[in-house]
């Protein structure tokens, strides 16, 4: 079937009317959660509890329970932090950049992606606190006036992190909430036969809608603020992951101290973010049968972005080796040779194969559009991205300058427990989200449905 690229395919398949769109999206919210939902919820919360127990033990006995040692003083917690922040960046990027680029297909996936951002950043936010030796002193990381007259060291990238991640979380939350206000109003005004949706839920919709009444005088300012938010969120996303890459780039270690790190990390973030969005949306559109709104075209477009960013990450791997060779510095050369052929070569080759080779399958259109294959590729990409951070953190630390201080890192059960716990937390929040808020932005999908805009206006803009 020849793809006609002249006319943009309709974003909502099946010629749904605006009312039908609303029914479709609001369906999961109008019904009480079934057994399957509760089963899923218990699984994710129990996994989260495993992480919680490991965390409590580490807090009580000390972080000696983990695998960290000298010289590899950072281990799983920092890898998890960068991994989750990376995943967090896709959401805001999708809704912000694609909004600025007038990619109207973003409406289907924007809301869910932003929700994933918030949850991913929440998972990421735990790690900078719990990975420290004395977590009860985490307050020292903030420049609050205290009786010691001491502030913080603003030249340290960890302080950049504190500001960057908190700003990013706040801005994403605000961006997400502004998008949600019209939907809350719609849900508030929906007519549903009584008893199905609890009174508390209705009141909460009323409270969170702030009394939005779809007035066009408000839509005018709303659109402008949405534009501003998107305008600021885009550089924010790039800056936050640049700052997260500063955690490594600012140091003197070879394998960390390279100028490619900021773009390399940002590309990696988008890459793993899109992969996670594809992974979760594939399930969500199946369970809540939103195939018509989150269409295969949407997924295909995302897969194309996955190839692009995958290739960027592949380029970064290559360029690191080239610079090491080109710099002629024996220590740097050793670090990269050791990374590919030393004790952690297994992790390195998992990373390269998952991040560079696996996405190449997406050149084939059939694979790009087949849901099961797409699911496998996106899962592998995230596995690859986790290992990328693992390789960066561990290999550069375990064999650095003085051969006498070379060491070996091996994670313990508590490390794995906490990683598992973070996934548990993430998916628990996703599950709670699907049952309380619309998984797709009702107002925006209505706006792009066929025939939603006044006819003579259509060709003009």
């Amino acid at each position, binding site marked *: 079937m020849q793809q006609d690229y002249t006319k943009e395919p309709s974003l909502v398949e099946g010629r749904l009317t605006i*009312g039908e769109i609303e029914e479709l999206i609001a369906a999961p919210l109008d019904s009480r959660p079934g057994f399957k939902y509760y089963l899923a919820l218990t699984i994710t919360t129990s996994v989260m509890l495993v992480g919680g127990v490991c965390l409590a033990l580490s807090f009580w006995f000390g972080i000696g329970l983990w695998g960290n040692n000298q010289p590899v003083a950072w281990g799983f917690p920092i890898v998890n932090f960068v991994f989750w922040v990376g995943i967090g960046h896709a959401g805001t990027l999708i809704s912000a950049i694609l909004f600025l680029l007038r990619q109207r297909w973003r409406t289907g996936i924007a809301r869910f992606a932003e929700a994933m951002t918030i949850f991913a950043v929440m998972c990421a936010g735990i790690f900078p606190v719990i990975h420290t030796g004395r977590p009860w002193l985490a307050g020292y990381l903030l420049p609050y006036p205290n009786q010691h007259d001491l502030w913080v060291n603003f030249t340290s990238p960890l302080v950049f992190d504190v500001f*960057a991640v908190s700003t990013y979380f*706040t801005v994403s939350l605000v961006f997400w909430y502004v998008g949600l206000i019209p939907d809350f109003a719609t849900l508030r005004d929906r007519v549903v036969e009584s008893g199905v949706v609890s009174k508390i839920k209705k009141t909460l919709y009323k409270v969170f809608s702030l009394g939005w009444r779809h007035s066009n005088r408000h839509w005018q300012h709303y659109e402008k603020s949405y534009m501003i938010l998107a305008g600021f969120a885009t550089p924010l996303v790039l800056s936050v992951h640049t700052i997260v890459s500063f955690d490594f780039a600012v140091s003197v270690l070879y394998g960390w101290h390279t100028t490619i790190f900021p773009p390399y990390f940002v590309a990696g973030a988008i890459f793993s973010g899109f992969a996670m969005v594809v992974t979760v949306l594939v399930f969500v559109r199946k369970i809540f049968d939103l195939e018509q709104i989150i269409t295969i075209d949407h997924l295909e477009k995302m897969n194309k972005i996955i190839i692009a960013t995958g290739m960027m990450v592949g380029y970064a791997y290559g360029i690191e080796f080239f610079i090491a060779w080109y710099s002629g510095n024996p220590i740097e050369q050793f670090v990269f040779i050791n990374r590919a052929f030393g004790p952690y070569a297994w992790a390195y080759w998992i990373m390269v194969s998952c991040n560079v080779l696996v996405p190449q399958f997406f050149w084939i259109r059939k694979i790009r559009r087949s849901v099961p294959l797409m699911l496998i590729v996106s899962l592998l990409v995230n596995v690859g991205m986790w290992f990328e951070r693992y390789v960066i953190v561990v290999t550069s630390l375990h064999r650095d300058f003085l051969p006498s201080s070379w060491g070996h890192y091996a994670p313990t059960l508590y490390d794995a427990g906490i990683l598992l716990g973070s996934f548990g937390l993430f998916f628990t929040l996703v599950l709670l989200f699907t049952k309380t808020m619309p998984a797709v932005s009702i107002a925006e999908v209505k706006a792009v449905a066929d025939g939603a805009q006044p006819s003579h206006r259509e060709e003009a803009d």
Partner: protein
Amino acid sequence: MERTSKLNGVAALFETPDEIMAAAEKTAEAGYEKFDVNTPYPVHGMDDAMKLPPTKLGFVTLAFGLAGALAMLGLMTWMMTIDYPMVIGGKPFWPLPAFIPVMFEATVLLATVVTVGAMLAIYFKFPANAHPLHDTDYMRAVSKDKFGIMIEAADAKFDELATVEFLQSLGAKKIEKIREIADPEPPIFSKRFVLLLAGVFVAVALGTYGTLNKALFYTPFDWMSYQPRVNAQSASVFFEDGFGMREPVEGTVARDEVLYEYAGAETHPEIPVVNPLAATKENLAEGERLYDVYCSPCHGYHGAAESRLRKQFPLPPSLHTEKARTWEDGDIYHVIHEGQNTMPSYARQLTEDDRWRVALYVRALQRAMNASEADVERASEEASDE
């Protein structure tokens, strides 16, 4: 929601976006100002149709963005350069490159949050759940898939009949009259709310006090304020007698310990011992200070036994008696070291050099208290040429 009879406005529903666009243009042309168009999603071109002035939200963003950047720069500069400058990694006290990232973050944070805040609070005057339009069929329809125009009663051109007729002429499918809300404005400080406030106050106050002063000092929190070591003059659980500090074993001699060979001897040293310290200005000044600290409570500031112990302690003999003035330096040192009759030994409180300095000062005192004529003249000459 109960409604009063007072009319707030008239609302009309339309089916398609084209209808609402036409209706809006006609309403604007008809001269109505206080009217509003309600659509489930933003309809392109509606702003021009309603002839709305462009929004000024952008300026709020600009203002607060700049404010954020400058405030953060100022904050960081004050903290790292002015208030507590520290040498960190050989960097200067004002490391501007390191300030850039955090400044950028502050810009974005302040710009976005304040813009949204301003929009919601000032432009929209949210939260406004108590607006008359809520809980009306018109709002439910507009929320789902219909489009509507609502003309407020407060508009200058508003006349109930004329406006309804005008709306029907626009092709409205349904007209609805919107009445004002009857519910009274609930008081802010209801009894339950004041109770809640008190509860919050007590809870937070106790929580803060409990955490900061008590909870943060239990295992596993460890602040190293009390460390597992035996500080000077502290108790020890290990020794039964509870002393953390141990007495040295008698008979042992420390590396820089000075043993006084006449210690414990009754009589004064037979061989005359001359004061090893020279009578320099510093030694005498220090001797005076030490005398005033240790000896003056009993012997008085001038050695004439003007004691300050409120007669609770027997008076010592004056230092200016014939016997005392003819004593050897060694004898004074001996009495300081061993004590005499009721006078205790001051060997513990004065180091060896200090004892000789006190002896020096005592000699000076004795000479001063019964100075010869020559002394007086020389003293007055020195005083004059100072």
